[in-house]
């Protein structure tokens, strides 16, 4: 149905009304009006907070016990519980230097891994393997951090680059498998996650990483020279990793929107057949983009092994980052700046959630629930639109991937 009005009749367009103001930015993809880009995520956050409040209320067992006798007081208790929880969440995320430090520190690997997933989405690939790439990248950095003796000025870059190579190889492997054999990256990256996780578990028990005489799967402390320097002294965990993450945001922006290979990534992401027509090597692009994606995840691994006090590494250092990354890439509409924004949001939620858990007695799982809700609302834009009666044109879903057939 080609003529149903989504296209204006040609005559309606002013023939001489072209404007090239800021044309570069528009072509490059950030021209999407800020309002439109932020509207849906913001509404999703609001909805998640509302549902979260509801959950806090219905799980307030003490208040429910009083409900029979003094319903109003009980309801007041519930609302008070919500208030305290959200107040503490906010204080824990932004309320002090320590809170800000924790928010930024927690955001760092999330932003990096989120960029990794976003780059994949832009090229039409669904990289679920950030977790595995974090493991491999982190182990590469850990090895350099333990066994290479260099001054800090060299040691950190070498360890970080090693992490990118390690993560890149792990991601590139999935890309190569897709390019060569057509194996779907969703399957291969999930499987490589398992391989990486169990490999990590095993290798931490070998003499390669283990402290001498130890029998538990924990690495020796990495050398001082390889530890990411903290920014505000050792009492705050925030370290130069956040600068790496921000630099990565700009780098990914440049790659995607200003470089020729980024043009190819995006073309292949939207239309593999048009890329083939345009003379692009789609098979190479799959491998390249997965390498880049893996390298970014590897950076997140580096911040986890080189930047996390007490600088000894245990098996699950990838934590939930690999999966949070998928959520925040969606939330950030696969745009580097969007990922930065949503990475900070998730970091704040997690850091604030720790404090909320302690001070308000609300389980940390609520934070996970809220993250999940945000993503569900992002993934179901119709729902958000229906609730807020937002016009379709203003809150379009982001293109994620061309799906299983890609």
């Amino acid at each position, binding site marked *: 149905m080609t003529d149903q009005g989504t296209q204006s009749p040609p005559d309606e367009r002013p023939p001489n009304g072209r404007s090239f103001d800021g044309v570069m930015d528009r072509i490059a993809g950030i021209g999407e009006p800020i309002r439109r880009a932020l509207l849906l995520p913001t509404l999703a956050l609001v909805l998640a907070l509302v549902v979260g409040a509801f*959950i806090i209320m*219905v*799980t307030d*067992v*003490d208040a*429910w*016990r009083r409900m029979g006798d003094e319903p109003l007081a009980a309801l007041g208790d519930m609302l008070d519980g919500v208030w305290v929880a959200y107040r503490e969440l906010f204080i824990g995320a932004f309320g002090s230097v*320590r809170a800000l430090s*924790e928010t930024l*520190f*927690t955001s760092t690997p999330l932003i990096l891994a989120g960029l990794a997933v976003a780059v994949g989405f832009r090229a039409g690939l669904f990289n679920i393997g950030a*977790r595995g790439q974090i493991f491999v990248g982190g182990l590469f950095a850990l090895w350099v951090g333990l066994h290479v003796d260099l001054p800090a000025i060299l040691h950190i870059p070498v360890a970080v680059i090693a992490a990118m190579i390690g993560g890149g190889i792990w991601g590139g492997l999935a890309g190569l498998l897709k390019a060569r054999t057509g194996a779907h990256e969703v399957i291969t990256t999930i499987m490589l996650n*398992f391989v990486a*996780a*169990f490999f990590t*578990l095993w290798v931490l*028990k070998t003499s390669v990483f283990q*402290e001498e*005489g*130890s*029998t*538990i*799967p*924990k690495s020796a*402390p990495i050398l001082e020279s390889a530890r990411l320097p903290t920014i505000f002294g050792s009492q705050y*965990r925030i370290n130069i990793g956040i600068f790496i993450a921000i630099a990565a945001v700009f780098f990914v922006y440049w790659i995607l929107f200003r470089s020729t290979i980024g043009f190819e990534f995006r073309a292949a992401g939207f239309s593999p057949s048009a890329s083939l027509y345009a003379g692009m090597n789609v098979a190479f692009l799959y491998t390249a983009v997965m390498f880049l994606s893996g390298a970014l995840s590897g950076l997140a691994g580096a911040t*986890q092994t080189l930047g*996390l*006090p*007490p*600088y*000894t590494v*245990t*098996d*699950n*250092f*990838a*934590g*939930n*980052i*690999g*999966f949070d990354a998928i959520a925040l890439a969606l939330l950030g509409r696969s745009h580097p700046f969007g990922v930065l924004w949503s990475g900070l949001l998730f970091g704040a939620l*997690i*850091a604030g959630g*720790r*404090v909320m*858990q*302690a*001070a308000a*007695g609300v*389980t*940390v*799982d609520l934070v*996970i*629930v809220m*993250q*999940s*809700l945000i993503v*569900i609302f992002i993934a179901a834009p119709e729902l958000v639109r229906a609730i807020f009666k937002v016009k379709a044109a203003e809150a379009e879903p982001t293109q994620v991937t061309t799906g299983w057939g890609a």
Partner: protein
Amino acid sequence: MKRQMRFFAIFAVFALVLAACGDGEGEATTTTEGAEATTTSEAMDDTTTSEAMDDTTTTEAMDFEAVKVCFVTDDAGVDDRSFNASGWAGVQDAVASGAAQPDPILLESASAEDYQPHVETCLAQGAEHIVTSGFKLADTTAAFAETNPDVQWTIIDFGSLGPNVTGLEYQTDEAAFAAGYLAAGVTQTGIVGTYGGVNIPTVSIFMDGFARGVAHYNEVNGASVQVLGWDPADPDAGVMTGVFDPADPIVTATCESMLDEGADIMLPVGGAINLPCGTAIQSRGIDGALVGVDADAVEAMPAEYMDLWLVTIEKGIQIQTQRSIEAHAAGEPSGGTSLVGNLENGAVGLSEYHAWEDRVSDELAAEVEQILEDIKSGAITWDKFVVGAG
């Protein structure tokens, strides 16, 4: 993996809401499995009445000045049906006995990133006694114990880390040895099996003692009962699932492969990873049994598995945690020492036989009793695990 479960957290929430509305029970700190956590901790209250713990000294008579306690789990969370759950239950016992102030703080970790901020939160909240759970918190505990000498610390499953840190360690292989002897005595196929979550000392110590107990049975009785999953001569070859998440299919697969080889008595070591094995035994209709670990499985595990427990190798994390807090509250903190639980002091032992009581002959029961006594007295000894290395 457990971490992938978070995508299903939303569904868990609805389950939680139903659970919370359904029974009106639960605690201030609810979690995605809140209702179950409650049963666990309630059940653990009874542990002290079970056989092995009978000879422990009662501390209720003592005069306590209640301390403020903060409990930090490792990334498995408090509902691990393992050391985190047991430690938290011990904290609550300390509250009950008056050694800990009411409303102790529980901080659940979701990842390694949480350990330090949680410990910092404990300190900021003015905790006088901080219990950290598991070896993953060792380095963080050591660092903060050093900079906070006025605070007393207890670390579960690890040795003392300083003059103000009490280590809780367990010579569980002593009881596991007796359990192995028992298993070898009741197996009908002549094959028993064991597997662990991850090859760490706190896990493999069970498997090692168990396998040695089976070997002892063979030696004494001229039998040839076979052990799958562990060979004391080659500890690196021990069978491990790599996960502590019972929902992971690898857990069921690991158990089933041993059942395929004919094992009828199984010792899975690591939280609730024995439950899928129980399901497998039931669904195959095998006349087999499970050996539980940590807290008496009859109390700690769901009712549908009640017929399966041969015995539990009890590891008194709960009681030792309570004792460590109580020592502090009594004005004699045990910091600087490792409380090593063993048969002798009763923090390690075997539970009652429960459903399998009729299946264990009086002779066998007497032999097991004798073995327990011989280990205590040193008449039976072997190259035991050195606990607390690291």
